[in-house]
């Protein structure tokens, strides 16, 4: 029987053919735990499960990315304990302060690969679908059980088939596609389901990551871009992982890339999306370029193309927080970073930064922010009265120049 990519990967992980709707116990290929959840995970491992050792230290990755570097004594102490625990357990894949956001780093390190089942303590673990893995986010108890046993349980999800047609125009990006999908499916449109993204063979791994990270914003359990096309030619794709034309999908959503305009999610819901042109003139105080959704080198380079030779509007603060040290090094090497700094941007340490509202650019009550991240929930980045708009790196750069949310096609 033909299977979706999610069914194929979960069949491998279960050791038998499975189909949507079944509840199955599966082997985990890789488990990721990050700094802000790890203390709870370790507590559950030791105090509730009585597990002294993790199941396999080589299949565990630890990332210190959420509050990196530490913002206060509590986080500093907690991170020291996490480092000591990882050493004691023999976990070599510890990505410490400055290496970057777990999702970006695991893809760069080739720990995330096609066909793997990856569970992570962060909801944006759907990102691993960028390279054809089944990535899903879980809470502390689930991750603790996975670390102790190498297994978890899952309901095999139905799959939504997203089908793109055409090509993106100038100034329109993968982020606009992700926001358009949120606009069409709504915040709960893929609840309990996986998404497969078809028609994106020309997309880079970074563009695929933008799509896959935002699968969770429509409720998705996983968001998988088939590992085909030029971007993944050198990645090992297992022979059993193939798109089967007669697999059963719960629905199909067609996205016409030719006609897509820059999209904006207005406060305070990710699916409160409109064409930028319908927005009116929204003055902005903060432009924040970064996160697992849009903090890669190509995102910074896209912003730099618009900002080259220009100055950021005097009423705007622009934060740039690279998704990883590799992204930062690339941006240094090709002059992208100096362009951004010359325009007046400020640089933060690679990591999650203010996306989670704990440090490095927390918003005050009157702040209006154009954010390249994935969530604009009330209070997410700081004060609950702050206004967060989501847009692409190009829109971020155009907005930084204009001082209001602006269309990159009118700035360039």
């Amino acid at each position, binding site marked *: 029987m033909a299977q979706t990519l999610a069914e194929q990967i979960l069949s491998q992980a279960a050791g038998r053919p499975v189909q949507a709707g079944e509840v199955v116990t599966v082997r985990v290929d890789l488990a990721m735990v990050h700094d802000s959840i790890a203390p709870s995970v370790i507590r559950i491992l030791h105090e509730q499960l009585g597990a002294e050792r993790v199941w396999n230290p080589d299949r565990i990755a630890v990332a210190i990315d959420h509050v990196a570097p530490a913002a206060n004594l509590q986080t500093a102490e907690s991170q020291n304990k996490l480092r000591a625990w990882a050493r004691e357990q023999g976990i070599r894949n510890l990505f410490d302060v400055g290496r970057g956001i777990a999702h970006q780093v695991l893809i760069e390190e080739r720990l995330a690969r096609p066909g793997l089942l990856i569970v992570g303590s962060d909801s944006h673990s759907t990102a691993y679908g960028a390279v054809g893995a089944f990535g899903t986010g879980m809470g502390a108890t689930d991750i603790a059980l996975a670390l102790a046993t190498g297994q978890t349980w899952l309901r095999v999800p139905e799959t939504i088939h997203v089908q793109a047609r055409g090509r993106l125009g100038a100034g329109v990006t993968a982020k606009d596609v992700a926001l358009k999908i949120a606009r069409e499916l709504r915040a*709960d449109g893929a609840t309990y389901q996986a998404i497969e993204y078809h028609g994106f063979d020309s997309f880079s791994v970074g563009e695929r990551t933008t799509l896959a990270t935002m699968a969770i914003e429509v409720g998705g359990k996983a968001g998988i871009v088939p590992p085909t096309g030029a971007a993944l030619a050198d990645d090992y794709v297992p022979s059993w992982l193939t798109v089967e034309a007669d697999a059963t999908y719960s629905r199909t959503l067609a996205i016409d890339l030719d006609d897509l305009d820059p999209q904006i999610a207005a406060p305070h819901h990710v699916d409160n999306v409109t064409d930028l042109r319908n927005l009116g003139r929204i003055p902005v105080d903060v432009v924040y370029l970064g996160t697992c959704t849009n903090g890669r080198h190509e995102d910074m380079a896209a912003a730099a193309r618009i900002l080259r030779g220009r100055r950021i509007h005097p009423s705007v603060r622009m934060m740039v927080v690279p998704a990883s040290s590799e992204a930062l090094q690339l941006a240094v090497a090709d002059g992208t970073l100096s362009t951004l700094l010359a325009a007046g941007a400020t640089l933060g340490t690679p990591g999650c930064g203010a996306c989670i509202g704990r440090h490095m650019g927390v918003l005050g009550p009157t702040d209006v922010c154009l954010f390249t991240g994935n969530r604009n929930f009330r209070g997410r980045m700081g004060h609950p009265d702050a206004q967060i708009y989501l847009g692409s790196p190009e829109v971020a750069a155009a907005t930084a120049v204009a001082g209001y949310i602006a269309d990159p096609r009118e700035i360039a």
Partner: protein
Amino acid sequence: MSRIWRFGDDVNTDQIVPGRYAPYMTSEAELRKYPFIEARPDFAPTVQAGDIIVAGRNFGCGSSREYAPQALKLVGVGAIIAPSFARIFYRNALNLGIPLFEADLQWLEDGAEAQLDLDGGILHTARGPIALPQPPAWMQQVWQAGGIVPYFRQHGRFPGEAAQ
């Protein structure tokens, strides 16, 4: 008697416990103060053990932070009833042993009195009894065990295929 706490659609984990309120090793005594601290400031100080949350669609969307359902468990929320739940929240709540029912009861008034008979799956209200949709048997077994960790320790395996 328990009371009904009404919430709307798309209640997210940042509304349940804003990220900046529960960094790292927050104690249970602290966490108890935080549920809906900004979205509904009267909730944490006055909620009683056994009270029931009745919400709209997609309850618990957003982060994987388990301290969102954990905070609701700490204050004694007896069940959450909504037409749909975000799946990470659903798992986290199930793992902690909080009963969830998928039903649209948004016509119930905020502050209404009600009594939940968990075994029978009946919500007794002033307007009569409401039969709640029954979750699969294995899910009820997780509730009865008190959560996924006690379940796993009792059975030596995860719920699902072997129990169906």
